[in-house]
């Protein structure tokens, strides 16, 4: 029997990033109460908190697991807790902190003067990072549900943050209504899982679904598991915006303040995929069980890639276009998960490929959004025509956005190319040629809409002249993202290793640990 009495040392250590985020967010809220009038420090406090959380995560990374868990094996730890602090969680902790940090930096100038509730805005950004961390480490249905709901609520508020803007309100409301329904569906699905196992703990569920005789309602099990999983998939699919659960995203993306759009395009996606991987792979990842959902996932991946890339073609608003673009990108990530059954691929596993893809996507997409934020702020519009002649008004922003788009299309040697190479490599390894062909060909389609913007920037003449001067925050984010897009592309090896290391925490548990 495990000793389940609270060990405060372990808890404080392993919750350090989350605790820092909670304290920081609450502190920001009260800061606004007491230091009214003195404006402008909130984003820097936010960045400081995020940096602290990142350092704490880095500190956890360097720890020896054996020492931390005091001799208990990772499998035992897995069986015990509702929240896991393993290398998989660490990876997504870094993703959430990076997303929040880059969004904050690129949004400072944009949000200035847009709202009176500044402290709250940045506090919500921190809460969002916290929610993503919870999702990444969730090892219990309750924590999964709480994490997803938490992130959803924060996202609704952030989307509708600018009350004076009709589009913002509309986007927030649509997001909320759609999210409520999928949340209900997901919770309904989770109750089935609880019903099967009699517990909300993932390891217990894992054990239960592997031993049919233990099932509470045996005669329904073959039917219930796929049904429950599809309902859960609706909830997670809503967060990561895969077809057909994506309808909210174009309106929400267009209406939300642009920094929030940037956040939505990366943060919830990464966290959603973390939950999806943890739940589907560790619990339902055996060959027999995965047969119930792999086909559905593959079909959704194909549908998402086609729909996202085709629908993006006709958009005249860049934020809307990026909504469909990020739907398509979620489709690529889904390909990697659908291919997870395949053999280990050229030094990287299919799930490692997904994590690598997410890492590459994070920098590229946030960089692209930083440019869009700057253009939106300086021209007051995010329509395609606002980008006309950008190569003359700001050569730096134009060439940066071009490189980000090339990376999203998958032109080597940029990071996005290696992401695609990894996931489609995984698909080929798993004999999913159809999916790989759909993926690369819709990638060609994506070149049409990305290049529509490139064309406008380089071949068009500016409607009104004058150089655009992006804020220092934007310049910093664009430069960082640019450097990372190039580095991940030119020297992918260390990043492949980081991704692989993160999924090793995930995979052994899928096989041997639980089945024992």
């Amino acid at each position, binding site marked *: 029997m495990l000793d389940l009495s609270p060990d405060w040392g372990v808890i404080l250590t392993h919750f350090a990033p989350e605790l820092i985020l909670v304290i920081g967010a609450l502190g920001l809220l009260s800061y606004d109460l007491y230091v009214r009038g003195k404006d402008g420090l909130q984003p820097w406090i936010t960045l400081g908190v995020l940096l602290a959380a990142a350092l704490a995560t880095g500190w956890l990374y360097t720890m020896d697991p054996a020492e931390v868990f005091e001799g208990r094996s990772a499998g035992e730890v897995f069986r015990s807790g509702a929240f896991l602090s393993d290398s998989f969680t660490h990876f997504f902790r870094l993703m959430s902190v990076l997303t929040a940090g880059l969004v904050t930096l690129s949004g400072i100038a944009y949000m200035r003067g847009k709202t009176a509730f500044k402290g709250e805005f940045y506090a919500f950004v921190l809460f969002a990072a916290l929610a993503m961390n919870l999702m990444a480490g969730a090892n219990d249905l309750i924590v999964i549900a709480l994490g997803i709901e938490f992130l959803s609520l924060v996202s609704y508020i952030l989307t509708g943050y600018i009350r004076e803007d009709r589009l913002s309100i509309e986007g927030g409301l649509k997001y909320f209504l759609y999210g409520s329904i999928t949340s209900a569906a997901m919770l309904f699905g989770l109750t089935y899982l609880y019903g099967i196992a009699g517990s909300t703990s993932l390891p217990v569920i894992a054990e239960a679904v592997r031993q049919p005789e233990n099932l509470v309602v045996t005669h329904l099990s073959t039917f219930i598991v796929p049904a429950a999983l599809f309902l859960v998939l609706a909830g997670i699919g809503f967060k990561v915006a895969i077809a057909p659960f994506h309808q909210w995203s174009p309106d929400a993306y267009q209406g939300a303040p642009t920094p929030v759009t940037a956040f939505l395009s990366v943060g919830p996606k990464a966290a959603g995929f973390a939950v999806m991987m943890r739940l589907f792979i560790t619990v339902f990842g055996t060959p027999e069980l995965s047969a119930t959902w792999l086909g559905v996932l593959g079909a959704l991946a194909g549908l998402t890639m086609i729909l996202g890339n085709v629908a993006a073609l006709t958009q005249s608003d860049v934020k809307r276009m990026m909504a469909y673009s990020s739907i398509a990108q979620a489709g690529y990530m889904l390909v990697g998960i659908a291919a997870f059954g395949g053999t280990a691929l*050229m*030094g*990287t596993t299919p799930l490692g490929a997904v994590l690598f893809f997410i890492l590459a996507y994070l920098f590229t997409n946030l960089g692209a959004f930083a440019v869009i934020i700057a253009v939106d702020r300086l021209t007051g519009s995010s329509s395609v025509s606002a980008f006309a002649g950008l*190569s003359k008004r700001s050569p730096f922003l134009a060439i940066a956005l071009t490189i980000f788009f*090339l990376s999203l*299309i*998958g*032109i*080597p*040697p940029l990071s996005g*190319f290696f992401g695609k*190479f990894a996931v*489609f*490599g995984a698909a*080929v*390894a798993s004999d999913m*040629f159809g999916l*790989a*062909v759909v993926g*690369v*060909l819709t*990638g*060609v389609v994506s*070149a*049409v809409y990305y*290049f529509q913007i490139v*064309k406008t920037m*380089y*071949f068009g003449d500016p409607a009104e002249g004058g150089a655009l001067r992006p804020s220092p925050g934007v310049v910093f984010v664009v430069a960082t993202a640019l450097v990372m897009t190039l580095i991940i592309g030119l020297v*992918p*090896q260390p990043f*492949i*290793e980081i991704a*692989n290391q993160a999924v090793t925490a995930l995979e052994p548990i899928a096989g041997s640990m639980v089945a024992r």
Partner: protein
Amino acid sequence: MQPFLEQISILSLITFLPLVGMVWVLFLRDDDRIKKFATWFSVIPLILSVLLWFGYDKDAGGFQYEAFFSWIPNVGINYHVGVDGFSVPLIFLTTLLTTISLWYSAGVIQTRVKEYYAFFLLLATGMLGVFISLDLFLFYVFFEIGLVPMYFLIGIWGGPRREYAAIKFFLYTLAGSVLMLLGLIAVAFNTPGDNPFTLVRGGMTSDWLTAAPIPFASDPTGALAVAAFLGFLIAMLIKVPSFPFHTWLPDAHVEAPTAGSVILAGVLLKLGTYGLVRVAMPLFPEAFQMLAVPIGFLAFTSIVYGALVAMAQWDFKKLIAYSSVNHMGYVTLGIVATVAAVNGVTPEALAADPMLAENLEAARVAALDGAALQMFTHGVITGALFLLVGLIYDTRTHERDFRELGSGLWRTVPKYGTMLMIAAFASLGLPGLAGFVSEFLVFNGAFRVGLAGNQPLLILTALSVLGILFTAAFILWKVIQMLLLGPQNERWIGTPDLTNNELAMLAPLMFFIIAFGVYPWPILEFIHGASQSLVAHMNVDANLIEVARAASAALTSLR
């Protein structure tokens, strides 16, 4: 540990110096300085490629000047470069045309000079990288890099329909590339060993790694192998471009600025045929052989259809563009003849003529010689022709329609007329000029392979000769008769003739057209060695040779 410079290799210098130049250009302010700097800077890789030409040991053959770094060890991807007889002439061609293009552009590009030169130098790196790669992945990366700058060159500095032409070029090529990407992944999965991406296969040798086996060894004509081969094939045929994938070419060529057309026709098209030789032949010998006749049919169609469509053009530039479809068809035909299967050769026939198998091999080598030489000669000839179109259109007449330009241009601008005459005759394959040698070799080889026992190939080759006829027709009719001969067109009297500067630009191209037409051995020497070893390596007729040897041995023992 090898000395640093040796490990870097002259090839890396040739390839990445233009990239260095590009970065440098970004920091220059004055337009004139940018033009001077970029043009002179591009001479350095040119000189290095001349050194490479003379430094390559032709007797030793094989891959030389290799450099090797492990790039992504997890995945088995290496930065592995090296050259053989196929790539050395093309590297020289690329650096030469790049310098000439930049030189020419200095006179005509007035807007957004910095971006133009930056893109052009980046393009040079992409093209050169393809020719030095001995790693499939590296090959793909460079193959793609060239896309982006070309898109901008057409889209910003092109003609009236530039935006359409630019995106069409980009999408067509990208569509081919992504199929190649899947093929590449499939190849890597089906290659055992530590270097699944290497292009050093089978019997080839390298200083740095042992050759990997040919992929899909267990089922070389199975569905997966053929699918992967088709991925490569389509990517290359789009780039060549071969009928029916050629429709991007006239648009891109006509709209591109002159220097862009020169590079596009002179080098970029060769990436396709070079890919067939460097990648498709060694990796998929049997799948290639299986599909040889259909591909041969596409080559034949490109030859005849390309020539006929060229004949119908009134736009000078468009005519040259379509003539490229025709001329690149010869290259494809030569490659097809190299791999095509030969049937119906009975043991008795082989026994009666022990030389049959050896002759067949010689025929294949001749066809491949011709194809590889045609890549170079077409680059020089079409490069010269596009330059000549630019010289008359960009700065003199601003008119490209034959009906408006003609006639009597030779009398109006005699130096220009002479240059055009040489290039045009080379293009139609006049003996004594470079184009003839390569086309002759292609037809010679293809006929002999066809005669040995491939009826469809024989027929396709015979019909392809019509292409030469049609080429002669449109060159003589449109370019020579309508443009150069006849009474002087009043409108153009007083048009200035070529300056010494412009003559100097054309001089190297004219030199190679004439020199390699009269005495092609200096370049054939390279190609011949590489062709021989590739044909031997592919072992297309291995069983035939064995049968022949066995049969003749049996005969001798009977006597």
